[in-house]
């Protein structure tokens, strides 16, 4: 007797189902992108599973959330946190060159992993992002490494509105130079909008540094004319960084200074309103600043708007009146490459230092125009300067081999701290008057009370892979090298073994529950 046809079909299907095992959900790699530090936690991107994993320490526990990013046809190229650390950006690109009709998209996730991401169509597999200090925008571009695409437009950019959902895909109108970097020279206060007034009109200016030229754009109105300024490829002027001086009573028009990677001149672009509503333009002049210029800043004395540059070859500060381009030189008597300004109560002081130099030079700027021949002061760093981090207006931290120096400028005091490992700025954070240190490759978390300069150290159970400070929960999070997820949470106010705890396996949380 033959079974009914339907029964035979069901039996056949059942046998086939039993014989054919579904694909292994646990094959593939587990190579996550390096964690991104947000305000509240750490975020890993898992390209193989098209997921973003949010790890949020809270009290004694760790909360893990996952969000989808892209699909099987895409892969996450890179991820980054926004400057305010409230969002995480991830760019998806086609998973392979054989994937066609796949658009590149930028995802913006809230840092806590809750809610849907904002997705921007950015049209190109950009390799770099510049984030504006006012936290409003991100500009995606092809960085120095270019792109692996067969053909790409090196001057294509995407201006992403981080407060909304808009995106502007633009190509720079330059003179053929390849875009190298993007800066926001007018934004000098973190988290605040600081538009530049040109002819009484506010502009939010971004500077696009290309080979031998600078392109300026008003981000508030990308439809306005872009200002492309050639800086002289014939003289080897390759822009390295910019500095924008707002207009004031000493010099009415805003001026954008452009530092060259080499050469003895600084480009000065005076920004002038077009007057016809089409935007602004720039008048270019090249300021001679000695043999070389490795860093610069502007300073207004009582009557003179100065551009101060450091001539690394001569070991001197060069003061230039930007109105007349006349100036003077102050020899430092020590190696100098970098500059910064600090307040001294009644005035300003310029601090100059050089990597591998053994002295920090300070020069009071009060009445500098009338004090020719003023001598700088020096603070000696016996073992040389490897790294210098400005802690606050009065203090800097210097890494020098296995030593740390805390330099107090008002007291002119240098306090050495011995360490077992060289200082790594990536493994430190300043929280109030407490310096937190957790250098990768060793198993100690240290704190230094900058008021008393009393160091304390706490031994961890494992070697440090990376050091993070989360301002939201006010916790140090030290990650250890383990693909399953391994971290130690330390209270920065009381770093001890009794108040710290370890979490393991959080990157695999829920891994068995996937369908």
């Amino acid at each position: 007797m033959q079974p009914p046809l339907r029964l035979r079909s069901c039996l056949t299907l059942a046998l086939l189902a039993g014989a054919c095992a579904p694909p292994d959900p646990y094959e593939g790699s587990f190579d996550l992108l390096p964690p991104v530090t947000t305000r509240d936690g750490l975020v890993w991107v898992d390209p193989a599973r098209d997921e973003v994993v949010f790890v949020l320490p809270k009290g004694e526990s760790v909360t893990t959330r996952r969000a989808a990013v892209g699909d099987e046809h895409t892969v996450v190229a890179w991820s980054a946190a926004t400057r305010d650390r409230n969002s995480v950006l991830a760019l998806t690109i086609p998973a392979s060159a054989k994937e066609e009709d796949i658009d590149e998209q930028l995802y913006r996730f809230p840092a806590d992993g809750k809610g849907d991401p904002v997705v921007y169509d950015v049209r190109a597999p950009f390799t770099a992002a510049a984030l504006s200090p006012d936290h409003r925008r991100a500009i995606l571009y092809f960085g120095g490494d270019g792109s692996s695409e067969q053909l790409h437009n090196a001057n294509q950019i995407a201006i992403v509105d981080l407060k909304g959902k808009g995106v502007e895909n633009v190509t720079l109108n330059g003179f053929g130079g390849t875009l190298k970097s993007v800066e926001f020279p007018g934004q000098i206060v973190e988290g605040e909008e600081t538009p530049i007034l040109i002819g009484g009109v506010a502009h939010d200016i971004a500077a696009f540094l290309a080979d031998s030229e600078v392109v300026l754009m008003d981000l508030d109105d990308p439809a306005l004319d872009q200002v492309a300024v050639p800086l002289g490829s014939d003289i080897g002027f390759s822009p390295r960084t910019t500095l924008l001086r707002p207009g004031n009573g000493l010099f009415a028009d805003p001026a954008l200074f452009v530092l060259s990677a080499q050469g003895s001149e600084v480009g000065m672009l005076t920004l002038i309103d077009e007057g016809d509503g089409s935007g602004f333009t720039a008048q270019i002049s090249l300021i001679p600043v000695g043999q070389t210029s490795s860093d610069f800043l502007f300073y207004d004395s009582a009557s003179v708007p100065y551009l101060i540059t450091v001539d690394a070859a001569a070991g001197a500060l060069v003061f230039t009146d930007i109105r007349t381009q006349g100036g003077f030189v102050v020899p430092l008597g020590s190696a100098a490459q970098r500059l910064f300004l600090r307040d001294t109560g009644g005035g300003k002081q310029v601090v100059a230092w050089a990597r591998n130099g053994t002295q920090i030079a300070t020069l009071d700027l009060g009445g500098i125009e009338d004090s020719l021949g003023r001598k700088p002061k020096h603070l000696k760093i016996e073992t040389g300067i490897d790294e210098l981090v400005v802690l606050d207006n009065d203090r800097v931290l210097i890494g020098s081999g296995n030593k740390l120096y805390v330099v107090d400028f008002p007291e002119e005091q240098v306090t050495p701290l011995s360490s077992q490992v060289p200082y790594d700025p990536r493994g430190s954070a300043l929280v109030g008057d407490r310096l937190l240190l957790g250098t990768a490759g060793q198993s100690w978390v240290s704190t230094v009370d900058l008021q008393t300069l009393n160091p304390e150290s706490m031994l961890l159970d494992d070697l440090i892979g990376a050091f993070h400070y989360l301002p939201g929960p006010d916790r140090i999070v030290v990650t250890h090298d383990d693909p399953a997820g391994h971290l130690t949470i330390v209270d920065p106010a009381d770093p001890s073994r009794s108040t710290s705890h370890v979490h393991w396996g959080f990157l695999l949380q829920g891994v068995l529950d996937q369908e």
Partner: protein
Amino acid sequence: MPSSMLILALVFAAPAAADRSAVAAEAPTAVEAWSPAAADPPPASATPTPAPMPMPVPVAPPAQDAPSAATQPPPPPSAGPPTPPPSREPTRPDRPIRWRVDLGGDIGTTVNFDPAWRAFDYNRSAFHAGGTIRGDFRLADGRIFLGGGASFRRFGAYNYLYGSFDAELTVREPLVFFRLAAVVREGFDVFAHVGGGPSFTALSLSSYSTSYNAGYQQAVTAMADAQAGVSLYLPKKWLPRRGAARATAGFELAAGYTFRSKIKVRPELAVSDDPLPTHTSDLGDLAIRGFVWRFGVFVRFQ
């Protein structure tokens, strides 16, 4: 292969077909049609009729020696050597099968349908091996045997999860079961059993990058098992002692389903002395359950 060896053993242990037919005609065994009722005349070979012991008999003198015999008194019977009794194997009584006790071992496979199983094994099947002791007794002088037993089985799994983690799992479980068997004919049973017990699972997850970390977990879950199958064994009539045989052997095939309650997988990280307080994460649920088949060999005492 044990199964092929067993089959070969069964083939060679069985008498030739011609002999079997002759024996069967004269000595039907009592398993499939045994009845203690007096109405049935006992089979000849099964009747425990004691054979008369042969006594020493004096040898009669030849007829031509009669005269001399008349002159000489015959020697006393005790003076001569006794004639040995004729050689004959002692017969043993047939033994009706009222109960059976089996000792066996088996191998098999469980096909796990929970996708989480694949984290610990590259495929869905888990090979297991075990041993069983069981017994049953005849119900109402019929073909049905009811009993139970206990068994132990073990299986393990390993996977290199995501190419980054060593995931291992071992299950050890004792099983108590009830068994119902029907003798279709002696040498061929069909049976079913249901049982349950604790399932002891040990699992680990480890990774090695710049340092080695490993998490371990042991879990006890409930397990229930239901199987049905067939047993093939040597019937008494194929054994040298035939109806009196008290032991036989065979093999069985069974299939069914094994249920185990879920394991909440949360391995504990192995730490050194005086560690920082360490917390681990919930990796999810693992349900090791699915269809099972097995092949076993057994020795039966009956």
